[in-house]
C-alpha cells in the first residue's frame, strides 16, 4: 500500500520503536498519536503517562488535551501534577519522554517559547510546559516534528528545552546523567545523534524522499550517516489502525474534516 501521507509515515515510523516494556511520557498531538498507535499495534502493555497525572492511560480516542477525561477513566491511577513531576518524572521512573517542537536545532535543543526577542516577542508561543524537565529526567527523549526551514533552524530564538547543547559532552557538562534526544522522527526521515559530536544525523529517509527535499526543509547543512536506510513504508495494518484511531477521534470530538 503506497497511498499514505508523509505525516502518516512519520507517526508510523515513531510508533515502531515503542514496545510494551516502555514507560512513556507522552505530549499531546503527534507524540501521543505515535504512542497510542504503538499501543494498538504491537505494544499493548506500554505504559503511557500524561503530565496531567494519569499513569497507564489506554484511551480509545486521541486526547485533545493532556487532561481529557478518557485518560483518567482508562488509567491505572491518577496522581497530582506535583506528584507526577516530583516522584514519577524527577524520581527517574520514566524511560522515554516523547516531545514535539516549534523550533529545533541540529543538537536537538528545542524552542517552544518565543519567536524573536523574549521580552518583545514577534510570536509568543505556549512555553515549556513539562518539556524542560521531561527532557532532563527521562532515560531518553524521542522528538517528533515536521521538517520546515521555519522549524529546523541554525540558531534557536530561545532554548526552552535542552537537548545536546552545543554537542560533544555538553550535556554531561551541564550536569545531565540521562541520554537526551536519541531519535527524531519527521515527515521525511529519522535522525539520531552522532555518537561523538551528538549532532543529529539522518539515519533513515522515508521512501521517495530526496536529499534535495531534505536540504530544502532544514536550516543547516545536514549530516547523513554513512549508511542511510530507507524507512519501510507503512503496512496495511499500520495505516488501517492509524486511520481508525483518527476516525474514532474525529467522531468523539465531533471534528468534521
Amino acid at each position, binding site marked *: 500500500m503506497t497511498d499514505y501521507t508523509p505525516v502518516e509515515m512519520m507517526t508510523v515510523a515513531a510508533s515502531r520503536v515503542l514496545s510494551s516494556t516502555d514507560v512513556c511520557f507522552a505530549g*499531546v498531538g503527534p507524540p501521543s498519536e505515535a504512542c497510542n498507535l504503538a499501543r494498538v499495534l504491537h505494544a499493548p502493555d506500554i505504559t503511557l503517562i500524561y503530565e*496531567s497525572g494519569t499513569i497507564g492511560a489506554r484511551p480509545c480516542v486521541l486526547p485533545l488535551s493532556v487532561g481529557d477525561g478518557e485518560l483518567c477513566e482508562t488509567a491505572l491511577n*491518577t496522581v497530582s501534577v506535583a506528584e507526577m513531576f*516530583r516522584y514519577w518524572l524527577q524520581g527517574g521512573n520514566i524511560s522515554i519522554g516523547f516531545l514535539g517542537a516549534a523550533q529545533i536545532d541540529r543538537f536537538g535543543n528545542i524552542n517552544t517559547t518565543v519567536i524573536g526577542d523574549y521580552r518583545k516577542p514577534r510570536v*509568543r*508561543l*505556549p512555553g515549556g*510546559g513539562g518539556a*524542560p524537565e521531561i527532557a532532563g529526567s527521562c532515560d531518553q527523549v524521542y522528538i517528533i516534528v515536521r521538517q520546515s526551514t521555519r522549524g529546523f533552524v541554525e540558531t534557536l530564538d530561545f532554548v526552552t528545552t535542552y537537548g545536546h547543547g552545543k554537542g560533544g559532552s555538553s550535556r554531561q557538562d551541564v*550536569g545531565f546523567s540521562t541520554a537526551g534526544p536519541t531519535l527524531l522522527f519527521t515527515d521525511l526521515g529519522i535522525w539520531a545523534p552522532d555518537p561523538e559530536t551528538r549532532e543529529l544525523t539522518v539515519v533513515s529517509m522515508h521512501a521517495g524522499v530526496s536529499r534535495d527535499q531534505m536540504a530544502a526543509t532544514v536550516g543547516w547543512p545536514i549530516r547523513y550517516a554513512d549508511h542511510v536506510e530507507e524507512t519501510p513504508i507503512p503496512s496495511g495494518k499500520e495505516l488501517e489502525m492509524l486511520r481508525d484511531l483518527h476516525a474514532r477521534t474525529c467522531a468523539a470530538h465531533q471534528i468534521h474534516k
Partner: protein
Amino acid sequence: MTRVAVISLDEAIAEYVFDGATVAFEGFSHLIPFAAAHETIRQRRKNLTLVRMTPDLIYDQMIGMGCAQRLVFSYAGNPGVGLLRRLRDAVENSWPNAVEICEHSHAALANAYVAAASGLPLMIFRGYRGVDLPRFNPEIGKVSCPFSGEELAAVRAINPDVTIIHAQRADRSGNVLVEGIIGMQKEAVLAARHAIVTVEEIVDDLAAHANACVLPHWILDALCVVPGGAHPSYAQGYYRRDNAAYREWDSIAADRHRFQEWMNENVLEQDHTVFASRAIASREGHD
C-alpha cells in the same frame, strides 16, 4: 479555624478577590473554574496577578477583558487547538493593557505551589539546566546540597491571596471532594490565604474513599454551588469537555471586536446560573 461560608458566587468574589490581588484559578484541564472567572470579569476586577499552570481560555478571557496586570504560568496554549490569541495580543501588542510575564516550567510552578502548601519559602528540584528561562525570571534560584554538593534549581513559593477551584461536590459541613484529574488543586488551596470553591452540588454524604483528594471545610473560606461551573472544561462524573467550544474559541479570540461582542453576550450580560444549561448542552452534545 473558621467554618466555611456557603454563599453565592458573586458574594464570594466580592469578598475575597480585590483589585491588585494575586489570584490562582486552578484546575489542570479538568474542573477549570470558568464561572468564577466570569463573575470576576463582571465585577470588573483590575490589576490582578493571575497564577495558573495552563492559562487556557479562562485567562485568555480575563486578560482580554483587562483584569490582569501580571501572569504567572507554565504553558499558555489552547490545548489541542493552538495559541491563546488574547494573551498574545497583550504580550505582543499591549492590548488591552501590557501584561507582565512570570514564566516557569510545569515542574517549577508545581514546586512553587508545593513550597507554599508546605509553608516553606522555596522548593528545590532538578531542572532548568542549560536553558534560557532562568535569565528572565528572578523567582528561579539555586541551592547547593550540603551532602552531595549538587547544585539544584530553587523556585520561590507562590502564596496567592486567594485560590479559586471548582470541584465535584461538598458535604453539608463544607468538606469538598475533588476526583479524577486532581491537578494542583489541593496544593493551590493550601498555598493561599483564602480559598473559594465552587461545586456541582452539595450532598449528604461525600462517599469519598479513605485516600481521596478531600479538602476539609476548615481550610476553605467560601463554598458556592454552581452547577456546570467548569464549562467548557469538564467535571468528571457530571459532564464532558466541550471540545467544540475550545475549537470555536480560536476564531472568536482572533479578532478584538468579535471577542468583545462574545464577552458581552456570554459573560457580561449573563450570571453564573447560565453555566448549568451550558453543561447540559455539552453533555447532550457528547452522549
